[in-house]
């Protein structure tokens, strides 16, 4: 899976979870950039990402994964 592909699919996940078509992700996007990205939506995000890429994010990572760049790296390495 190419980095671009991951970005594309990840962007769709974010747009669905936050119900906001205007979301555009880049490596530096963090939870500070998306107003609604709070602890509740974070859980939903994790669940949605795990479904989309059909893999399990190792525990501990989940809690601190608030940076899109890291997410993409993780998906590329594990998924």
């Amino acid at each position: 899976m190419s980095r671009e592909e991951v970005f594309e699919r990840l962007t769709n996940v974010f747009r669905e979870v936050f119900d906001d078509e205007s979301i555009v992700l880049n490596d530096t996007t963090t939870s500070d950039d998306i107003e609604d990205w709070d602890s509740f939506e974070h859980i939903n995000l994790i669940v949605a990402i795990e479904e989309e890429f059909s893999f399990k994010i190792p525990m501990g990572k989940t809690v601190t994964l608030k940076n899109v760049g890291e997410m993409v790296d993780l998906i590329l390495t594990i998924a």
Partner: protein
Amino acid sequence: MDKRTVLIIGASSDLGCAFLEHYGKEYDTIVAHYRRMNARLESVIQQAKGRVIPVKADLLNESEVREMIRYIENENAWPDSIVHFTAPQCENQRFNKIDWQVFSDEINIGLKSAVMVAQAFFPKMTKDHFGRMVVILSSVTCGEAPGFCANYVVSKYALLGLVKALSAEYGPKGITINGISPHWTNTKYITNQPQVLVEKQVAESPMGRLLEEDEIVPTIAYLLSDEASGISGENIEIKYGKQIRK
């Protein structure tokens, strides 16, 4: 007490079954309320060889609860002890997305059923100068509450209020009522929590695991015992457990 009768509200829950598996033998009569019969409760009933009176009722349906109470009275199965397990499935949700109906249903399943049952059987306990009630609350009533399940927190606090109010009113009459507040326990109740949430709980728990049923039910049994006559209005948190040797 010579002969003891316990009423279990929510006997089909894992904790309800676990309590009966461990301590059912201590009761001459067990009135087991359930909403949906399941294999585990069935085997509990079988092993108890006729000492169990199963009663089906949907706690959301007032007339079914009244019916249940009337049935128990007719069976002359007046309980000296009541254990109230009610586990409305709790999905995390933003507060402003939760319909009042959801709050209302949880209050009816939890508080209302506890009120109706206590009102039905406390007068007899008063006459006997002995009674026990244990209400299963939740760790959300201990210290800081979690976010995103306001309906659950509110309904458990309402039950805690009932525990406090009834302990003051019935304590002088020999009736005790207490709450227990277990942390996340390994039961089917947690199954519809997202796995990541469960793992988060486990990671933050002192034992690094979910609690087991047999770390919860003995405290219920103790609070129902004659010996515990001095304890009422307490809310006992259960959070730790056996240290399994590495």
